[in-house]
């Protein structure tokens, strides 16, 4: 995985479980309401906290590009087709832009950014092995499940190579000129067959090293939560609380389950 080779940044020293918890707290608080106040308060506070993550700007832009792109697109959709209320400004076929849809669009753009940015930044530095250690030792998920998933993750790179080889082989076999859709389906099926085979070999290799043996498994790498992790989760809770309180206090809170 890329995280193994990534240059160390301040965030890399926090436990992946803490990062998972922090982005979870923000996401839960922000999906409870659809107003613009809670989202903008959260986003503003997150942007203030961002420099402390220690991620170089260039890398930050590159990795968060998808969020910056997705947010306005989502907003645009809501703007054109969102629930209408108040004055209608444009009415053309299915498109109906109203005061209500404008407000909803702005709230949605802010919300996608406020949930997406911290999630991307936090997971930028997550090492899959450390995440597995944390999930098994701290969250107490079953070792079989966590380690199976971790080992399977490594196969993804192999599947990428398989896919490229399958593609070249189809060109070599003379069938790559036409029938793109059908070829894609055939290639996907071939990859599935290879994947199942690789999966069962992987299972044998894991069992050959005593995986699944009776008795308690130990963990070579300790996974602990420390002050840094507490600070990260605490920060996320504070941002979430500030966003909710500001929204409720200004009367914009709009609980989704209550609509």
């Amino acid at each position, binding site marked *: 995985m890329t995280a193994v080779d990534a240059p160390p940044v301040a965030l890399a020293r926090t436990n992946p479980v803490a990062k998972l918890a922090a982005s979870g707290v923000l996401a839960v608080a922000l999906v409870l309401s659809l107003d613009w106040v809670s989202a903008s308060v959260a986003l503003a506070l997150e942007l203030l906290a961002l420099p402390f993550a220690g991620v170089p700007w260039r890398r930050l832009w590159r990795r968060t590009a998808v969020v910056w792109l997705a947010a306005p697109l989502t907003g645009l959709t809501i703007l054109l087709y969102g629930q209408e209320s108040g004055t209608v400004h444009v009415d053309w076929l299915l498109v109906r832009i109203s005061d209500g849809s404008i407000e909803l669009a702005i709230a949605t753009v802010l919300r996608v950014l406020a949930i997406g940015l911290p999630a991307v930044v936090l997971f930028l530095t997550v090492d899959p092995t450390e995440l597995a250690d944390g999930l098994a030792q701290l969250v107490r998920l079953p070792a079989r499940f966590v380690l199976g998933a971790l080992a399977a993750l490594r196969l993804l790179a192999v599947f990428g190579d398989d896919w490229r080889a399958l593609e070249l082989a189809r060109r070599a*076999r003379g069938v790559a000129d036409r029938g793109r859709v059908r070829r894609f389906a055939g290639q996907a099926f071939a990859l599935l067959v290879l994947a199942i085979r690789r999966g069962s070999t992987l299972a044998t290799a894991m069992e050959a090293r005593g995986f699944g043996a009776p008795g308690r498994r130990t963990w070579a790498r300790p996974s602990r939560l420390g002050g840094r992790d507490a600070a990260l989760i605490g920060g996320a809770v504070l941002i979430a609380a500030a966003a909710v309180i500001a929204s409720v206090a200004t009367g914009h809170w709009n609980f989704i389950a209550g609509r």
Partner: protein
Amino acid sequence: MRPAHLTARGWGWRHAARRDFAVRGVDLDIPAGQRVLLLGPSGAGKSTMLQGMAGLLGGVDEGEEEGVLLLDGVPSASARGRAGLVLQDPEAGVLLARVGDDVAFGCENLGLPRDRIWPRVSEALGAVGLDVPLRASTSRLSGGQKQRLALAGVLAMRPGVILLDEPTANLDPDGVGEVRDAVERLVDATGATLVVVEHRTEVWADLVDRVVVLDPSGGIAADGSPADVFRREGDRLAAGGVWVPGHTPHLPPLQVAPGAALLRTDSLVVGRGRQALAAVELPAVVRSGGALAVTGPNGAGKTTLALTLAGLLPPRSGRVVAEARLAAGAADDPARWTSRELLSRIGTVFQNPEHQFLAAQVADELAVGPRALGLPETQVAARVEELLERLSLARLAAANPFTLSGGEKRRLSVGTALASRPGVLVLDEPTFGQDLVTWTELVLLLRELLAEGAALVTVTHDGAVLDALAAERLVLGAAAPVGEPA
């Protein structure tokens, strides 16, 4: 660690999905500390036997067991951790992203306390001579290093018996040497019992005390010292596909007279994506009736060069030029040919045959190329018929390509390329991991193609192939790639 002894009494195993037993009627005693080479023709159940010894065959839902297979007197399945198994595919043995974590994995599963795991990890890496940091990425290791990593992972568990299933079959000569030496060092140091399965017996012949030959019809065909078994059973073993010292195939010298140039390179640099891998500075020429062999260490870009010559990958810079005789009206750049234009001009045999299979039956697989060329069905049928005979696949015409044995898959993959009668055939490691029987059949087939005037480009480590095809060599170096026509 304490060496383990193995005992089989009338042992047999039938995989749940199969009608016949994979192994049957085996009576065998391997005393603690003995080093055994386990042989047998393809399909004799050697791998099944090793998995049985490792206790990995599973319960009644995975198959049917006969007799007993004991490790230190207890059924091997309940002696987990006493036997350590290394598999053939180096890719399959790597489980985790970092070297240290990967070696520690087995110790964790055995429930070893943390403070005892890490010293064992360092010790095991030292024993196999893998001198890389614990945090090094496992995906960057070479094939030989990956196999030594798998060996270290097994060693850290301190097993009483080390089981190796064709550990060097997929390695280049350097990798083979590395792994063999590592195994020798560690059995010398630990005294562990060793059972190796491998077609290429010369690698292990002087390291083992005993050779056991499984009989495909059940039981044991031969058992004794290496010299003894090879002398008495050499011919029979060679006929069954085992590479026995002194029984290598003797082929008459090949009279080649390479003819007209079909492909040539011009300041070619090859690579994948943005990354340049290898440069061929001196022009290389592929001639009708001649073989060009691409050799060099792992990671030198041999496969990439072969796929570029085959018109499948565009060059990073420079050119691959198809002469008019080969291009036959198409552009002179093979990378710009359509898939169909490529078909009758350059055929490619991939390293993994499974990557190139498209059909559900062997006969249909051979028909894919001729049909794509738009040949009438009578001609398609004639070509398929001829290839089925030539490749001895006739009785498998209706079988699914994925269910064939390794050697059959290899022959079929060569056949799929031959079916459209290309002027140039590009092969990536065609003899990798093949037993003696398949190896000989393949080499004879390639020599016939040369005699018929086809041009061959082959990536290979196999010196015997180079000699048998009288191949011109293009040597890629890891550090400074150079073209070096011999």
